[in-house]
């Protein structure tokens, strides 16, 4: 997912919609960018669905090395912010 930037996809999708809105494209070009738009919207949706939703913490080991580990600090605390 990292390779395809979600933002880029969204921006391109917006551009495509704007292009189509101008309405001065030839039929086959319209169809082409429509297809691209459909694929982009699928990609975006997929990116969102594929997201991992992790909360991690960078921990310093005794040897000074740093390590990432999952973090669930008092879930209660996170879920109920005052």
């Amino acid at each position, binding site marked *: 997912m990292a390779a395809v930037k979600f933002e880029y996809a969204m921006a391109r999708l917006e551009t495509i*919609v704007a292009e189509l809105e101008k309405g001065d494209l030839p*039929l086959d070009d319209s169809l082409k960018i*429509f297809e691209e738009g459909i694929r982009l919207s699928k990609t975006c949706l997929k990116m969102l669905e594929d*997201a991992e939703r992790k909360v991690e913490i*960078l921990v310093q080991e005794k040897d000074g090395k740093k390590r990432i580990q999952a973090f669930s600090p008092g879930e209660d605390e*996170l879920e109920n912010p005052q």
Partner: protein
Amino acid sequence: MTGHNLALPLLLSVSDVTRLIRESLEEQFQDVWIEGEISNLRAPSSGHLYFTLKDSQSQLRGVLFRSGALRLRFALQEGLSVIARGRISVYEPRGEYQLIVDSLDPKGVGAFQLAFEQLKERLSQEGLFDEARKRRLPSFPSTVGVVTSLTGAAIRDIVAVLRRRCPTVNILIAPVPVQGEGAGASIAEAIDVLSEMPQVEVLIVGRGGGASEDLWAFNEEAVVRAIARSRVPVVSAVGHEIDVTLSDFAADHRAPTPSAAAEAVVPVLAEIMERLDELARRLRRLVDTMLQMQRHRFERSLSVLGETRFRIQAQAQRLDELQDGLTRALTAQLTVLQRELVERRHLLLAQGPRNRIERFLVVIPQLCKRLEQEARRGLMSRRQSVAMQMAALDALSPLAILQRGFSIVHTISNRKVLRRASEVTVGEAVEVTLAEGQLVCQVEKVMPSSIS
């Protein structure tokens, strides 16, 4: 306050005395240095700053006019101990004396403040705080790095807001002490580490509110420089809104609170989803509209194309008319000619020789009749002429004397009428013509003398 003031007139107006007091004060306090604490600070829109300098026993009103205020290198704050330099004057409308400040320096915080100012000045010269360096935050980062303390409300607030707004975002926390000895170095190191991690797209650096000394780590040069060199955009969130640190100056975005920082870093996922949905819908609608439009355009052309048949039929109708016209015109001509012909034939028959023939057939018998009449009349008249002559002849007849008894004697030989007896000889035969009948006699005697 000299004696000769007593030489003044006994009765003075308020203005006069106020003016005299002002002149007197201004003469004596032309350039004074006064130490005190700022209170009752007011900053009206004029740009002048009004405040009260106070110490444990006394207060002195002061004003820093706009030009001086702009020259200040720090923000004037309530309770700040300062050394002010200026002159004493009187504000005549109120009859109040006040310090008109020329320059103002902090006192009390002393070294910290000075260091802050010096560092700020230096880094600013380096361009670290330039607006141009500030980067746009990613609109939808997949992973957010957070540099703060694990204890305290800040991390709680940040994680809660991030999860609430955008449940899909990954959060990577670098826990650091945020105050006390070595805090600055830890913070700077954490910023470096997180900013170098490829998945991190934006950093939040900060802590909750506290005393200004507690926030000092975020004014340290190492932290400020770490923020400035971060690979990814940094959002600073130190203390409360009024707390200003050098980190705030260096960060790409300054958030007044940690919660605000979390809000600035991620969008609301629901909105994104909605936008995505909307784009997909619009995409579909636009294409449908375009296809419908083209279809409509096409159908219109097609229907006109279909009308070609009617155009041909119209021509056929015109042709029918012409055909009818053709036959009608010729028939009309034929009728006219026929009528003319019939008229002429009538005239011919009327003027034909028959009349003349009939006329002559009458004339000729008439002529014939006249012919006959004339012929008969001619004959008749001639007959009358003949009759007339015959009647005349009859009347003149020499034989008429015979009726009276005369008779005519003539010789037989030469039929000579005898007038003398001597003309005959005895014995000669003579013929005697009587009134009726004739006699032939023989002469017996001739007697030559007449009977007298």
